[in-house]
């Protein structure tokens, strides 16, 4: 005997079936608040996960042009707990800060008070690691490279050509000693932004190669550039006392870079040389290695040659490297490994 449901019940059953199907189908499609085009699912962008990871704040007394292109990660922050960073980014502020630091470091002025020739701007400061026979790539197996977008380029080059052994990289665009020290910006390690004193021990590295500067020069006067760099290295050494610090000079900028980055009071061959001489002095004082990477690039006037620049002006910053320039950098590192 075949049971025959009443007509209205059959209609109800079909309706239920259709309803269930629709519910199932709609329930299995995840919809996000920021859903884009049909056919894909997208995640809405979330806000910053951590206040400490926020980007640096632009100084109010920096011109718009500077703040845009120079990447002025001003560290004068009204919220600075230590209160030790009160300098402004302008050259005026550089003059108004601690007097003893405004002196031109030795190496830029000769004994008679004359400025040294521009050609000497690329000469090795005292204490620079001299050229040696090239080391094997395995020398860099226990190395970690700390840096900004310039070093980030080296990390990309290394990922492609694998020339630096098992070297690791802790880089972030716009990273500076100041922004790292004050934890406004730090490189990502293990998927999270961490202070360098935390991430470096996690890498297990014993050689710490550091190249910072371009983002500090735009934000701090000479005194604080040096102080932040020194404090950052000391903080790293406190967390990882068995590492060796290899300080790499800031590299030159292009004369064809953005017009407000080059030929300013802040960024030119002289200020970069001054910064590098200061780094070399810190290295002598603390027994860190100083590598004058700049000497591998600078032309006779202390600027970055065109063939090395991947972002020439006027739109580009004129500081980032081409592949060939990265290769030159690596060659320098191979031939400037300390022998002790």
């Amino acid at each position, binding site marked *: 005997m075949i049971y025959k449901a009443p007509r209205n019940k059959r209609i109800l059953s079909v309706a239920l079936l259709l309803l269930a199907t629709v519910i199932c189908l709609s329930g299995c499609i995840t919809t996000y608040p920021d859903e884009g085009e049909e056919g894909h699912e*997208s*995640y809405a962008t*979330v806000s910053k996960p951590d206040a400490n990871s926020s*980007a640096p704040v632009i100084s109010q007394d920096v011109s718009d042009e500077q703040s*845009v292109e120079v990447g002025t990660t001003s560290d004068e922050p009204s919220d600075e707990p230590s209160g030790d960073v009160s300098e402004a980014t302008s050259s005026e502020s550089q003059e108004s800060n601690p007097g003893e630091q405004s002196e031109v470091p030795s190496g830029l002025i000769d004994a008679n008070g004359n400025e040294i020739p521009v050609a000497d701007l690329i000469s090795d400061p005292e204490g620079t690691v001299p050229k040696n026979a090239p080391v094997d790539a395995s020398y860099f197996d226990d190395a970690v490279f700390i840096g900004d977008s310039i070093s980030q380029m080296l990390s990309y080059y290394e*990922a492609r050509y694998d020339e630096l052994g098992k070297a690791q990289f802790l880089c972030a*665009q716009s990273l500076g000693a100041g922004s790292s020290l004050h934890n406004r910006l730090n490189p990502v390690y293990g998927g999270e*932004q961490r202070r360098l004193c935390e991430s470096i021990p996690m890498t297990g590295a014993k050689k710490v190669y550091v190249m910072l500067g371009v983002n500090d020069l735009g934000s701090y006067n000479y005194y604080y550039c040096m102080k932040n760099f020194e404090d950052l290295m000391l903080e790293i050494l406190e967390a990882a006392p068995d590492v060796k610090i290899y300080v790499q000079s800031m590299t030159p900028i292009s004369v064809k870079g953005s017009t407000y980055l080059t030929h300013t009071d802040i960024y030119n061959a002289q200020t970069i040389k001054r910064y590098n001489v200061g780094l070399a002095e810190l290295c002598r004082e603390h027994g860190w290695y100083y590598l004058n990477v700049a000497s591998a690039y600078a032309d006779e006037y202390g600027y970055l040659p065109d063939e090395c620049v*991947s972002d020439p002006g006027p739109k580009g910053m004129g500081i980032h490297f*081409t592949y060939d320039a990265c290769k030159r950098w690596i060659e320098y590192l191979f031939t400037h490994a300390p022998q002790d």
Partner: protein
Amino acid sequence: MKKIVLIISVLMLCLCACSPAVKDVALKDVSEKIMSDVALEDPFDIGSEWVANTYGVKVEDIKQCAAVVNMVGIFPDEAVMFEAIDSAAADRLAARCESRLNDLKSQAENYDPESYATFKKCKVVRKGNYVAVFISAKTEEMQRIFEESFK
């Protein structure tokens, strides 16, 4: 009897509807198509090790991965795609991609307005257990290639 058949039919329909019918895609093919079709300056496959380090992903969550970058500009183009081993892993990978995107936004904010504006348009894309993020001014082109590979 009819009721039982009806219930079974509904259950089967539910099961069918809930199983994501996503086509298997070789992500290396997609990355090659991105490199060939999108006008990027000197793109290259950067390898899964870089991705694992940079994105902080768990290798055991990944079934396959492909990543394309280049070395141009302050913030180079970056296209990273994963196939996760399961839905939960895909959630984790999507969160890591989101984190990477936010990190780059943090770095670009107040530093490179052009890149920051670009990053604000980028988003994490998901197709079943496939997760991708295209951090580039060409994000839409890359996303289109990614999605078309599932058709």
